[in-house]
């Protein structure tokens, strides 16, 4: 027997499956028993089966290997031990996510209209004016239902105290949901018998829910929906194709679309030009329309903003919604929730320090070796300082950057990210992970059951991004009642 749970050490972290005393957590007993009964050969077989399935299904992501050498496709790194979340806990998380995204959408809509929240001094106006993600071109526009961030991927982490915190809100073009869906398919192929042990909530209604959400953004009957992708060399192209297919929508690139003199969006088909009603854009908003933003963008569609402003096409996510997806605005989200909803936040933020505030900045500068410092507008784990793992030079460099542009930085204590058993050779070791659920907002709101669990495959690492050595696990929301 090769996975011996009595050898498994949680090492002071919260483990998702195993208690500090080496016992299975509530609900994890059956899973641990089944895994523990597998021989070395059986484990190797399952692992190979998963790799073959991933290979055969063509689940890849693209890694940029630097200029000149282009990019390569890697098979999606996947760990066969699932992560379990009890339904009861998930229901509470779901309510918290809905509340949060609701408030964020009200915030964005407010920022582009009367800006009451700035006038009332809850969020300082200068943060918005100086935000790289604020789009003056969006002021006064009324997207359907007042919703701007239709698809949100919120990163959740669990600290050593067992509590779930929101690490960040990804409101621009969050990706990963197709891997959540494919991970489940792989698990069904690899561990069919485990599905008999549990009531596992399905995840595969996501494409239908997304299609429903997008359809709710237009009054037209049987609207034409298009997924706008930067193309096959984008790291998330696999997902764009996957979702378009699963929604029966058209997968298009900028060159497939054209805006007519009537300010309507059309796609080029073998029959001629056909009107498009909703565009689910997976291109950063600075690239969607060379008439308005980056003039040299080849990815976008000239005139798209014009058509959107005229109300002739719905864009999801709406341009400009990134104004709420900013690491400094993040620190205000609890206040934003209270301001618009008059409710206490159900999901806590990770405690954060704003470098723009003198007292907080001084604390950050004095404690750089203990903190994680994040720039306001980066994603994918880039541009961060991880204090405890940094060198003196790196800290000095960050101190200078913070002093030069305090608005652009915030800092958080180093979280002790929770772990889950992850296959290393033929035994299990704890590896750190996070969770990205997806929240859809249109006429109604929908939260995925679970989400994408990303796991740092390197021992001790907390970097879960697939571009930097992360893998993923299937996430099971299970009901024991």
């Amino acid at each position: 027997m090769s996975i011996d749970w009595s050898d498994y050490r949680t090492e002071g972290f919260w483990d998702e499956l195993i208690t500090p005393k080496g016992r299975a957590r509530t609900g994890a007993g059956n899973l641990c028993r089944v895994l523990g009964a597998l021989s070395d050969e059986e484990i190797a077989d399952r692992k190979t089966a998963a790799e073959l399935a991933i290979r055969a299904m063509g689940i890849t992501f693209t890694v940029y290997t630097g200029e000149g050498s282009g990019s390569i496709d890697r098979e999606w790194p996947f760990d066969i031990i699932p992560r379990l979340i009890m339904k009861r806990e998930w229901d509470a998380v779901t309510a918290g996510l809905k509340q949060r995204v609701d408030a964020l959408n009200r915030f964005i809509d407010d920022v582009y209209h009367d800006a009451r929240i700035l006038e009332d001094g809850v969020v300082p106006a200068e943060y918005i004016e100086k935000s790289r993600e604020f789009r003056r071109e969006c002021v006064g526009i009324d997207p359907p239902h007042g919703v701007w961030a239709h698809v949100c991927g919120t990163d959740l982490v669990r600290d050593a105290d067992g509590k779930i915190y929101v690490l960040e809100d990804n409101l621009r073009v969050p990706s990963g949901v197709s891997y959540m869906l494919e991970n489940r398919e792989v698990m069904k192929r690899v561990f069919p018998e485990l599905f008999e042990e549990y009531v596992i909530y399905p995840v595969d209604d996501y494409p239908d829910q997304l299609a429903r959400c997008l359809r709710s953004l237009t009054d037209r009957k049987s609207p034409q929906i298009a997924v706008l992708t930067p193309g096959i060399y984008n790291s998330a192209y696999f997902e764009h194709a996957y979702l378009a297919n699963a929604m029966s929508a058209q997968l298009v690139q900028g060159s497939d679309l054209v805006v007519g003199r009537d300010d309507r969006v059309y796609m080029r088909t073998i029959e001629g030009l056909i009107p498009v009603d909703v565009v689910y854009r997976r291109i950063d908003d600075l690239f969607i329309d060379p008439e308005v933003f980056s003039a040299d963008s080849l990815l976008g569609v000239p005139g798209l903003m014009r058509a959107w402003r005229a109300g002739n096409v719905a864009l999801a996510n709406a341009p400009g919604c990134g104004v709420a997806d900013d690491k400094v605005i993040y620190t205000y989200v609890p206040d934003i929730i209270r301001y618009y909803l008059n409710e206490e936040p159900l999901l806590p933020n990770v405690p954060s320090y704003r470098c723009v505030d003198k007292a907080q900045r001084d604390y950050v500068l004095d404690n750089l070796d203990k903190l994680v410092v994040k720039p306001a507008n980066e994603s994918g784990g880039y541009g961060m300082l991880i204090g405890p793992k940094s060198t003196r030079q790196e800290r000095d460099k960050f101190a200078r950057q913070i002093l030069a542009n305090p608005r652009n930085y915030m800092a958080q204590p180093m979280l002790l990210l929770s772990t889950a058993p992850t296959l290393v050779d033929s035994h299990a070791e704890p590896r750190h992970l996070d969770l990205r659920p997806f929240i859809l907002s249109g006429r109604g709101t929908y939260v995925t059951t679970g989400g994408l669990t990303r796991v740092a495959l390197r021992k001790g690492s907390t970097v879960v991004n697939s571009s930097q050595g992360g893998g993923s696990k299937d996430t099971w929301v299970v009901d024991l009642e």
Partner: protein
Amino acid sequence: MTAHTLSSTAERSYWLGRYLERAETSARLVSVHANLLIDLPRRMPLGWRPLVAITGSAELYDSLFDDTSERNVCRFLINDVRNSGSLINSLSWARENARTLRGIIPRPAFEFVNEAYLFAREKLAEPLSRTRRVSGLTTITEFVQQVDGYMSANMLHDAHWNFLRIGQFIERADMTTRLIDVGTGTFWASAVELEPFADIQWRSVLRSLYALQSYNTSVAEPISQGPVIEFLMKDARLPRSLAYGLNSVRNNLRSLPRNDKPLAVVNRIRREVAHSNVRQMNGETLSAYLDQCQVRLNQLHDQIRRTYFDFRPRRRPVRKTRRTG
């Protein structure tokens, strides 16, 4: 909801058809040629040059290699990424096109294309013994046949399918004319002087097109240039004949919208082929005629491209009614 076919996906379907066909033919060509060389006596210096000629890449080849050794030619045709027409590149392009068509072609078809590419990349890398090469190339042709079978049996026979087939058959027609062209070439001069080996190249050409058996059962004449060329150009029952390919292109065009111009071009070529007297042609007239066929096939390709892929948006877009069913 997706009743519409994007010009771009139509184009990718077309190229998927072409690249798959090209991959299969090139795999087949190398195997058959190796087989032919085994049959020839040592003193006949035929060598591997004809294969370079067939693929129309002699200039590139000569810039890369000093000789036409088996090893170099095979490398060039199979796994040399510098040769845009190499097997590995054809499969790579087929895979890229198939990847962007996920959801249009059946999933197993994509998986087979993917597998074929990975197989070629891993198992057909150098150095390769002759036996391993032959069995590897056979595997490739089998993969492609499987892709073909899956798509034929399982995918929606919609406009994408039509473009896939049009691409496949234009490529096939093009390849068939090239093969005939090379069959008539001077490489064979020394071979055909020897009685037992006369017309051996036509046997090889037939075999490359899986047509040897069909020829034997349906043409009541011994194998020689005239009847073979006529069979390969005009016999509408033979899936790799020019006539069959053109008929298939026509049939698929008929299901597409706005097809008047491309149909006119294909029908014109069909008439020309039907009225040609290939048996009477030889040497220069035949060569000129085959050249003209290729020019015509290019015209057909161009017309299809202009009609469906690269058209300019009309000044005033019109709202089209959705196609039903």
